[in-house]
């Protein structure tokens, strides 16, 4: 099996770390020639460190926070306060500042992550402002209010008997560079860990990440706290570097500057914020000295920013990476032949079917109803699936099939009624827990992680199966996850996408995306699978292939399929349930259903007298 992409040597894998180390060492010898002095470089590194955490939050997880100043300021003021009043050492003060910022992150994250998207951006912005007011009121006697904390002593590090005094200039640069480098290595590890893979999934398609068995809220809170800790450390270093902790660290301007630098430099690249900070601070210093323009530097920056957001959605860094990787990319040698059937080279693990009550059906719905205001989408449907059965669910448009399915999968709460999985009640436990129990759903409209490869997509459900709904294994390598590759490759092979395993999903043709959609559900290892119109939008040839696929995966799995394609349905299913206007109209073998007069009437539209307006 071709696993060239995986078997890179450790040296090659750590090339970015090597380059960054070299850059940090060579920088002081080169950059002064273009007017970047030690102070500017140190400042850039502090913003770059701040940005590493923010990039994990925004660039990798997709959470746009406008309140990072809260953590920058908190870490900065705690560190500065300890250094000016207490007798703690430099490193202890920085550590405490970082920890306090992280704890603050838990509180703010808990509150703001209750809502996503725009709510998150707005509430982080508002809470960021709250800290500015706190600094000026409640904590004024500690922070000095508008004056900030002056006289932060220069760093000293005691190494056994000798004490290292770090003066401003290049020694300070080295001091900060060490922190930046450690921060970078940790961030790199997080990005490459199983934890990091889940973060990218959350960014790509949060709903599917939840449905595949990840407790995304815990991941989000964790990465929020990590970003807060980075902010706290950077804030602490700022106070040390300037020998002064300014109150404007808490302002919206600080949060905004971080966002702008990250977007300009390129989000999702880790080094983007560093690049953005270089552009920002270099422009600032450069434009200041040009008469007549100096006052407009921020206006110019604003215009540049808007252009970047409009035209290059991945910032300067993203544009660089794109041109670079386009040059290197070899022409795709995709063979468009329909893939060969799997020969069972490596089989996909299935969650063992353990029933809590002997003789209980695999999946059971007791009188489930879903009501939206005055509209009853599904009314009192009772349903039972036997072990190993393949059940079809059919019904005209608007019959409530999708709503019924969403309730079975735990995606939608029932208004009345209960759902049982192998004898255990699963009503209201949520789709993540249902997936962890061993039931998964594939969607009518593809729910994939478009910007990831087929392999990375398939990893997401396997990671949820292997690691549970949440595990903070952010410093471990992906290869530490037991049997990850084997499972991923087995699932990909099962749906016939082995030849595409390292292709980006966004570049796949529709038919292959459709198969990957099924592959994601399979890769969860679920022993009960719900398929919502698996043939939707497929051509005749692909249909045959997917029907064959559904037949081939029946061993060890019970399945429910919603489908419009009657021929496929009658060929596949042992029993068929017919839904009509939210109610169960009929249930039986394909032959019985074919002969059922009520079903015929429903499909021919002959039941108009029952239709409510």
């Amino acid at each position: 099996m071709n696993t060239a992409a995986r078997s890179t040597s450790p040296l090659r894998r750590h090339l970015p770390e090597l380059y960054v180390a070299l850059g940090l060492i060579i920088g002081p010898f080169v950059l002064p020639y273009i007017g970047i002095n030690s102070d500017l470089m140190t400042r850039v590194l502090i913003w770059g460190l701040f940005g590493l955490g923010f990039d994990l939050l925004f660039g990798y997880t997709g959470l746009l926070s406008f309140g990072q100043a809260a953590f920058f300021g908190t870490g900065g003021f705690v560190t500065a306060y300890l250094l000016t009043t207490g007798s703690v050492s430099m490193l202890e003060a920085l550590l405490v500042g970082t920890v306090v910022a992280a704890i603050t992150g838990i509180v703010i994250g808990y509150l703001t992550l209750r809502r996503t998207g725009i709510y998150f951006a707005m509430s982080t912005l508002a809470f960021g402002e709250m800290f500015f007011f706190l600094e000026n009121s409640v904590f004024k006697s500690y922070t000095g209010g508008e004056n900030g904390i002056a006289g932060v002593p220069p760093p000293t590090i005691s190494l056994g008997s000798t004490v290292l005094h770090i003066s401003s200039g290049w020694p300070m640069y080295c001091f900060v560079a060490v922190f930046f480098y450690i921060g970078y290595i940790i961030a790199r590890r997080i990005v490459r860990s199983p934890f990091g893979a889940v973060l990218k999934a959350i960014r790509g398609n949060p709903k599917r990440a939840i449905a595949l068995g990840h407790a995304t809220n815990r991941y989000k809170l964790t990465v929020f706290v990590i970003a807060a800790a980075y902010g706290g450390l950077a804030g602490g270093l700022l106070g040390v570097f300037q020998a002064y902790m300014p109150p404007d660290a808490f302002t919206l301007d600080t949060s905004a500057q971080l966002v702008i630098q990250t977007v300009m430099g390129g989000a999702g690249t880790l080094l983007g914020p560093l690049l953005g900070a270089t552009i920002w601070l270099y422009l600032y210093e450069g434009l200041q000295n040009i008469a007549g323009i100096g006052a407009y530097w921020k206006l110019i920056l604003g215009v540049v920013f808007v252009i970047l957001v409009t035209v290059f959605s991945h910032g300067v860094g993203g544009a660089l990476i794109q041109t670079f990787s386009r040059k290197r990319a070899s022409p795709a040698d995709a063979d468009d032949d329909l893939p060969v059937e799997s020969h069972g080279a490596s089989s996909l693990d299935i969650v063992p079917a353990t029933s809590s009550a002997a003789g209980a059906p695999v999946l059971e719905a007791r009188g489930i109803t879903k009501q939206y205001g005055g509209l009853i989408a599904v009314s009192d449907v009772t349903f039972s699936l036997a072990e190993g059965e393949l059940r079809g669910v059919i019904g005209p448009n608007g019959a409530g099939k999708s709503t019924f399915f969403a309730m079975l999968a735990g995606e939608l709460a029932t208004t009345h009624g209960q759902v049982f999985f192998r004898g255990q009640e699963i009503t209201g436990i949520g789709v993540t827990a249902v997936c962890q129990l061993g039931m998964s759903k594939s969607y009518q409209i593809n729910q994939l992680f478009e910007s990831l490869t087929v392999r990375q997509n398939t990893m997401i459900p396997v990671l949820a199966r292997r690691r549970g709904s949440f595990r903070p294994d952010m410093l471990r390598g992906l290869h530490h996850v037991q049997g990850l590759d084997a499972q991923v490759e087995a699932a990909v092979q099962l749906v016939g996408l082995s030849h595409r395993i390292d292709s980006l999903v966004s570049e796949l043709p529709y038919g292959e995306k459709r198969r990957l959609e099924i592959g994601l559900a399979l890769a969860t290892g679920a022993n009960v699978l719900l398929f919502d119109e698996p043939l939707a939008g497929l051509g005749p040839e692909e249909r045959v292939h997917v029907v064959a696929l559904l037949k081939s995966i029946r061993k060890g799995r019970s399945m429910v399929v919603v489908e419009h394609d009657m021929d496929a349905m009658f060929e596949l299913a042992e029993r068929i349930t017919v839904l009509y206007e939210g109610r169960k109209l009929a249930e039986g073998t394909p032959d019985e259903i074919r002969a059922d007069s009520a079903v015929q009437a429903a499909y021919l539209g002959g039941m108009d007298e029952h239709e409510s307006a």
Partner: protein
Amino acid sequence: MPSLSLFLSQLFNGLASGLLLALISTGLTIIYGTLGVVNFAHGALFVVGAYAGYTVYGMTHSFVIAIVAGALVSLVVGLIIERGLVRLFYGRPPEDQILVTFGVAIILVEIVRGIFGGVSLSVPTPVWGHGIAHIGTLIYPLYRLQVLFISAGTLLVLYFVLYRTSLGLIVRAGIEDSLMVNILGINVKRIFLVVFGLGAMAAGYAGVIDAPIVTLAPDMGFRVLVDSFVVVVIGGVGSFPGAIVGGIIAGEILSLTSMFDPAYSDVMLFVVMALVLILRPQGIMGQEGRE
């Protein structure tokens, strides 16, 4: 304990500033509700309106003309922003929309700073607003009382537009289900333009009215933005009644708590927002399931 008259006067203050906040937030919320875009340039449009009003007031000495001018300038700026930029972002993720409107906010504020300088300016109270009003035993600045009525009146007009006209019906339908409105063959692009303009105008209009009460500075817009975010988070994003309820709550909190210690009143506002987020994450008037 503060005296009863102080309490009453603060209660009035809270209502006046609360209704003004409600007016500003209404602009934000109808734009979000209809277009699905959170306009981070909303505070900057407030500033643009306030400074336009200041300029025209200086030239004509008529505050009424100043209000009209401020509203019109921000309307035009809003229309230009929608046509030139925001329109390109309807199909893009909300994060991109936030970033681009935030960029626009910086540009607008910096243009204002470039023209008027960074120093604070004060706008005199209009002649018809001079003096003191007697409400029972309460003595209250006349202009603030007028602001209360102007804001309430404007909100009433907005209510009428939203709930009694066909444009309002489409806007509210768009809030419920923009896809459906599209299918019905309504020219959504034109509606979007009008709504964005209206939202921008609400901000600019409020900016002129607020100008005699506060001092003008280019950076004031960010505070306005934060306050209106707090209002809509409390009231519920995209809800017109929510903006009013949230505005009044925010105004009263700021005003009543400042009787005890002004330094804490801002903090209290955020504490209330935190409570709403814990107890009712969708906001007081917000609907479940809206993101």
